[in-house]
């Protein structure tokens, strides 16, 4: 056998260990993992709770946005209907799209990941439970206050795509548009936090033996999903940042009269926006691939093809953003490239659909609610996919773009590809978290109401579009051909509404949350989440030999419960989980996990407060709230990264794992690299914006400051990186004093500050005015990004100094130290690149 880490796989053969476990061990495990009770329940960080609250909140947003849709359909049932006034309708459709996309579809996938992944992978929890709690609360508080803006008439009305110039200060003077930017700010934070969790979780916390070819297909889907978020969200982060800067400070990124370009927004938005569709679809497809096998009692046909399909989707979906822009007058050749990529991206979808059909054929499908939702979803998704191929054909898109044909198309894709699979998943996995399963009899009513309602609503809507009805219209004229199909669509919408209402009633009737006493494996799934589990997930972490371990080893559940596998107890008296290697999942070390804490909660609420208060322009309080957020964050981190006394822990079978690890193979390092990729993508998108805007309006550009300035700037950044690396070197040397390594870090932070001051100062001396031209605005945007990185570096350096003075700096290596060095070196590199770019291009050409 080969090994990835030097671990001997022959050790796996020792499990299950027949020897009885000591008494009291399980009680200890339960005590350590017990959730706080009473009001302290709010400080819970365990994935069973956070996951379920997360799913519940996301589902609440589905219902709220669905209600908006019903009111809109009522307005459109008849021509010149008076249910919704124009401005309210515009707010409704903006909120419907925004909430469904940002506050329902993405969060619910992350929520299901948080809830299911640890159990599926055989981990105790996700690697950063406090981050999960933070992401959830930020989303909860921010999402609800965003929705509440509707009740005050302050909701945005620029559409979920928020095209400037309609959304700039001239045409949207109220704070409504700022509320949109706020709402999106939250999903950006929580989506990226969740993505980091998921990437590190899937890659590093898998049960021993769960090699890449044995991962539950849902975990593959979530991995691709999370990486796509990391790549796609930075575009919308930058877009929202630029738009807010344009609104608040009058920097003309998108203003054609001052050298900006409204098309820049569309590129940035859709570079995020189209992958977003697949970000929503992939996890749902992963759920389908899981369920379609389990429900027909067979394994997924074409597992590897499906994995490939997901990977391919992850790549190719980044080459289709401009197919939302076929009608903007782009050059024919560019359009052709995007059309071809739009075709290519449909092949992976086809592979998955036929894999599901083949799986159904190879097994024994049963007539139950989740199967119905799967099949209903499959048919609906195929129809949506076919109309998707149609709109990938450019001349056809020129006609149907921005009509109700597209509305029909996208609802077929999203409801068939995502909502129906989610309902199947609700039915399938509810028994895992609830004392009772959901009623099959009611479930079939729910399905047929939703399925027929869906077809009645959206099938005629294709025709409405072909008859020329544009999207985003609050009314239409009497006597038009659009009356009949619109009326039918409204009837269908109410059928969907009735189905969802019935489901909600059923939830209240049957769903009773329980971790230890759940209804269990009603549909007889074969993956690890169906192994007997408590709040600590599985009692002992099994060695995995196949994709459906519970089917292939009927005794597995019993053995797991009896503690016959790895880590049947708490080895160090702390919460802990096994960190394993990325390819072969060989156990590497024990992660000591954090305990429940109120700090993620206060950090989240004060982050929400800061954003909200900024939006209503209460700047003083907003800053105070932001300071509280930073303090809470540092306070929560303060308790982490502390080596325990026991250096090597016996996790059973004679396998001894270190309890503290440092360097590039740690989960913390992985998370930091992921964060840096996000920051790097924002930077890359800024470079794109810079070059793009120059290409459109070069006549507005002027020469940069004297190039000699580059000497102190680059020198300062190089010194910062050098000092940081020197600090890391000193930390490992026995002879160095307690303070000499962190002093290098403080000096490095100072060097960053100095170099940044030189960069910023030279532009100001040169007369840079960000309000005057898009060049000024973009250079300033680069500087804003740099300033943020430098500020975080300084904060990290001070934090490290504080840890040093409290004696928390372990030697020879320390994770907090390593990550600070990593961040400072990255900051120096990015800052150097951006000062080079803005000074040499185009001025230096």
């Amino acid at each position, binding site marked *: 056998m080969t090994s990835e880490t030097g671990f001997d796989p022959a050790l796996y053969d020792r499990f299950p260990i027949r020897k009885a476990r000591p008494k009291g061990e399980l009680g200890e495990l339960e005590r350590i993992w017990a959730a706080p009770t009473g009001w302290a329940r709010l400080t819970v960080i365990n994935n069973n709770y956070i996951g379920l609250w997360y799913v519940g909140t996301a589902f609440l947003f589905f219902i709220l946005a669905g209600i908006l849709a019903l009111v809109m359909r009522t307005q459109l049932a008849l021509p010149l209907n008076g249910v919704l006034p124009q401005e309210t309708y515009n707010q409704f459709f903006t909120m419907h799209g925004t909430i469904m996309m940002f506050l329902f579809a993405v969060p619910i996938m992350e929520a299901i990941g948080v809830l299911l992944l640890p159990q599926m992978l055989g981990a105790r929890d996700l690697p950063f439970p406090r981050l999960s709690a933070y992401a959830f609360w930020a989303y909860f508080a921010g999402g609800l206050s965003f929705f509440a803006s509707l009740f005050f008439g302050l909701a945005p009305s620029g559409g979920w795509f928020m095209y400037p110039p309609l959304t700039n200060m001239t045409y949207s003077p109220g704070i409504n548009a700022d509320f949109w930017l706020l709402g999106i700010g939250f999903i950006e934070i929580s989506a990226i936090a969740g993505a980091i969790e998921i990437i590190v979780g899937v890659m590093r916390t898998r049960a021993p033996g769960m090699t*890449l070819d044995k991962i539950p297909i849902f975990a593959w889907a979530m991995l691709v999903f999370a990486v796509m978020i990391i790549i796609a969200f930075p575009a919308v982060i930058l877009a929202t940042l630029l738009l807010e800067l344009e609104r608040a400070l009058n920097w003309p990124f998108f203003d054609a009269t001052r050298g900006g370009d409204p098309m820049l927004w569309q590129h940035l938005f859709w570079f995020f926006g189209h992958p977003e569709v697949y970000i929503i679809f992939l996890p749902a497809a992963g759920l389908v691939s899981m369920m379609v096998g389990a429900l027909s009692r067979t394994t997924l046909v074409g597992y590897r093809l499906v994995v490939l399909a997901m*990977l391919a989707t992850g*790549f190719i979906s*980044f080459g289709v953003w401009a197919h939302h822009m076929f009608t903007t007058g782009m050059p024919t*050749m560019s359009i*052709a*490239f995007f*059309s071809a990529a739009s075709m290519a991206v449909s092949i992976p979808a086809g592979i998955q659909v036929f894999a599901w059909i083949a799986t159904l054929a190879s097994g024994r499908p049963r007539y139950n609610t989740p199967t119905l939702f799967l099949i209903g979803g499959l048919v609906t998704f195929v129809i949506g996919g076919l109309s998707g191929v149609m709109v990938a054909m450019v001349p056809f898109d020129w006609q149907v773009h921005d009509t109700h044909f597209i509305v029909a198309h996208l609802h077929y894709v999203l409801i068939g590809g995502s909502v129906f699979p989610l309902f199947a998943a609700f039915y399938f996995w509810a028994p895992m978290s609830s004392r009772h399963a959901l009623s099959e009899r009611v479930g079939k009513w729910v399905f047929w109401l939703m399925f027929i309602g869906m077809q009645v609503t959206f099938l005629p809507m294709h025709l409405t579009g072909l008859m020329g009805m544009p999207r985003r219209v609050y009314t239409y004229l009497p006597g038009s051909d659009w009356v009949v199909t619109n009326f039918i669509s409204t009837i269908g919408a109410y059928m969907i509404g009735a189905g969802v209402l019935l489901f909600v009633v059923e939830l209240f009737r049957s769903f009773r949350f329980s971790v230890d006493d759940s209804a269990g494996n009603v549909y007889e799934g074969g993956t690890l989440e169906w192994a007997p589990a408590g709040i600590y997930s599985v009692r002992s972490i099994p060695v995995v030999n196949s994709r459906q371990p519970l089917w292939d080893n009927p005794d597995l559940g019993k053995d797991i419960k009896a503690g016959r596998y790895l880590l049947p107890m708490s080895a160090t008296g702390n919460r802990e989980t096994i960190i394993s290697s990325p*390819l072969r999942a060989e156990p590497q070390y024990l992660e000591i996990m954090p305990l429940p804490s109120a700090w993620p909660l206060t950090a989240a609420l004060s982050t929400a407060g800061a954003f909200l208060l900024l939006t209503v322009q209460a700047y003083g309080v907003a800053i105070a709230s932001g300071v509280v957020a930073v303090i809470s964050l540092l306070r929560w981190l303060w308790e982490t990264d502390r080596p325990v006394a026991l250096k090597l822990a016996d996790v059973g079978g004679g396998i001894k794992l270190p309890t503290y690890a440092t360097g590039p193979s740690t989960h913390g390092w992985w998370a930091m690299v992921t964060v840096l990729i996000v920051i790097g993508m924002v930077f890359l998108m800024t470079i794109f914006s810079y070059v793009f805007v120059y290409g459109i309006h070069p006549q507005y550009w002027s020469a940069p400051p004297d190039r000699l300035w580059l000497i102190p700037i680059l020198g300062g950044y190089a010194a910062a990186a050098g000092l940081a690396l020197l600090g890391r070197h000193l930390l490992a040397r026995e002879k160095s004093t307690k303070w000499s390594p962190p002093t290098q870090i403080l000096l490095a932070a100072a060097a960053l500050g100095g170099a940044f001051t030189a960069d910023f100062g030279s532009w100001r001396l040169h007369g840079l005015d960000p309000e005057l031209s898009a060049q000024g605005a973009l250079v300033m945007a680069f500087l804003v990004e740099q300033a943020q990185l430098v500020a975080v570096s300084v904060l990290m350096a001070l934090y490290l100094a504080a840890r040093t003075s409290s004696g928390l700096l372990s030697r020879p290596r320390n994770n907090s130290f390593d990550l600070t060095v990593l961040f400072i070196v990255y900051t120096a590199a990015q800052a150097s690149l951006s000062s080079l770019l803005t000074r040499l291009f185009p001025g230096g050409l």
Partner: protein
Amino acid sequence: MRRWTFVLGGLLVWAAHFFLLYGFASLFPGERLVRTLSLAATIPALAADAALLWFGAARRRRADCNKLERWLAGLAILGAAISIVAVMWQALAAAIG
């Protein structure tokens, strides 16, 4: 890292090819020039895909290839195959678009 580059090789080739073509179309004036450059860029892309196919197949034939390696090589082969189709479609777009 090298293993991931191999497994995702085909898709990376597609991505490089696509963004290169998009870059040509955005940066250079004149359709004829863009067309020529794009078709020229297609040749190394297809060659890289072919090389991946060959390497993948060779790796699968090696006696010491374990189950996971074989599986990953299979994934690389599939990725290269889909990449060939997608790259050819991009080239088609360059030729007649």
